[in-house]
């Protein structure tokens, strides 16, 4: 059972929900928490666990060999991403722009380009009791996070059986990294806040999930601020409102120190129980 925690807008509480929910579930049963916000992975700040394993993650980029090159310019021509340019008899590769399609290397008539592995980030696997936590971290200056997200997903699929609850802390937005992060999810929980920005970005996220054909529901965070527009919208559109987490300065303060919230604030534990019930019912109906 794969549950992605996503949102259009940043800072709505994805990480707070992911880490608290996973830790709450781990008190009773096995759970895997994965931080797929590889540009700014934060879940690890809230999870105390033992490091089991680290893996360097690579992407494949072409390396030019001057000896073989006949300066035909074919590589430059076949690259749709402008990642290769020809300057006189030299070939320059821009690794940040390369998508790793192999066209330049495999279509080079003189085998002057070889695909080589280049580090783009690192995956780390932690464990504490029934909680497994996996985090991937994109190196700074790397542009494309989707490949690292998909390699992380692959790691999870290879290491854990299908029936364990898996929670994915997804990146914000609605573009390629989010698509990659929610692609395999059985269910997507969209976290939002009751403000105009929250509603606007929730609608974008919903459009994205509909296009992907994902099942989704909403968790409203910081309930009490702003207005009722998000609640009204969910009701009108028949979108399941799974839980409401109250606005509480104590939550913000606990979060600021990197502490979990539900042990201190019973109301939050209650809402997590509601979410878990919802997940289990959803799981049974599959």
């Amino acid at each position, binding site marked *: 059972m794969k549950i992605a925690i996503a949102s259009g807008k940043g800072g*709505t509480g994805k990480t707070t929900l992911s880490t608290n929910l996973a830790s709450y579930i781990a008190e009773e049963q096995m759970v895997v928490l994965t931080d797929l916000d590889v540009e700014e992975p934060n879940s690890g700040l809230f999870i105390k666990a033992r490091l089991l394993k680290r893996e360097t993650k690579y992407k494949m980029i072409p390396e030019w060999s001057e000896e073989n090159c006949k300066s035909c310019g074919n590589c430059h021509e076949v690259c*749709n991403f402008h990642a290769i340019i020809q300057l006189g008899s030299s070939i320059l590769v821009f690794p940040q722009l390369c998508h790793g399609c192999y066209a330049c290397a495999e279509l080079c008539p003189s085998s002057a380009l070889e695909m080589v592995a280049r580090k783009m980030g690192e995956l780390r696997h932690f464990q504490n009791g029934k909680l497994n936590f996996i985090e991937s971290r994109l190196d700074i200056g790397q542009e494309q996070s989707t490949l690292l997200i998909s390699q992380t997903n692959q790691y999870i699929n290879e290491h854990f059986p299908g029936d364990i609850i898996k929670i994915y802390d997804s990146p914000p937005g609605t573009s390629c990294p989010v698509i990659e992060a929610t692609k395999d999810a059985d269910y997507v929980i969209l976290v939002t806040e009751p403000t105009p920005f929250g509603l606007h970005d929730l609608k974008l996220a919903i459009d994205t999930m509909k296009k992907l054909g994902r099942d989704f529901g909403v968790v409203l965070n910081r309930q009490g601020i702003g207005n009722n527009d998000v609640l009204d919208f969910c009701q009108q559109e028949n979108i399941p409102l799974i839980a409401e987490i109250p606005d509480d*300065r104590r939550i913000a303060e606990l979060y600021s120190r990197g502490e979990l919230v539900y042990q201190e604030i019973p109301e939050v534990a209650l809402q997590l129980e509601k979410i878990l019930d919802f997940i289990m019912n959803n799981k049974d109906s599959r």
Partner: protein
Amino acid sequence: MKEIVVISGKGGTGKTSLAASFACLEGRDVVVADCDVDAADMHLLMQPDFNKREDFYSGELAKINQDECIRCGNCADICRFNAISIIDSEYIVDPLDCEGCGYCARICTSHAIGNEKLNAGEWFLSSIKTGSLMVHARLGIGADNSGKLVAKVKKEAREIAKRNGIGLIIIDGPPGIGCPVISSITGANFAVLVTEPTISGLHDLKRAYELVKKFNIRAGCIINKSDLNTRTTEIIEDFLKAEDILHISNLPYDEIFTESMTYGQAVIEYTNNDMTGMIKDSWHKIKQIL
């Protein structure tokens, strides 16, 4: 022409609320660019008239002509993105997985594969309530290439500024440190890093600053919600000192950010209190350093 970009690494720290306030303070003397094309929100505060709208095409998508296809499967074999699969004995491209590299079309011996231009979203040029102009955009659902749309928004903003003799562009940037952020900060004269005193705020600030440093852009920092955790605020202040980042200001936690947003206003227009004074001072400090 000067460009100021507002970024944060972490989402929800107050980037848009502050960028909108700065835009209001500057009135007609600035062009505004909302570069958070994934989840653009600034228009909710600026009353844009959506005067001009244009489709944005970027990248390509492979398309297989089934009448020409001889089912050799070469395309699926060479595709590194697993975007081509057999469905009902036909080779089909999954538009969400296709990166538009065009490799399959090049090697198809029966010339059955073409490349379609991809509609990646739309962009707008609007007059806004401050009497100024704003360029904003909406990325197509599930579209790739948000970095390219950001570049387009910035290019349009620069041209408009040039045409109207305006010397300043305020850019509201996206969260993260990936391609749309890199695209937003490229060519900027100054980056305003908005953070909050939480361990995630600090963690993301450091990563965002490392990126800014890599691009040789001068930076200043606003610590928003600074009284939420005074110890972490001190740690951030020490970090700013050590890295020689301009410490612009500390803004205390204030519900006025949410409240003004609920009324579709920037903080600075909604109220006149200590907070508005502090935002004004922050803006003056930023402008001085330019």
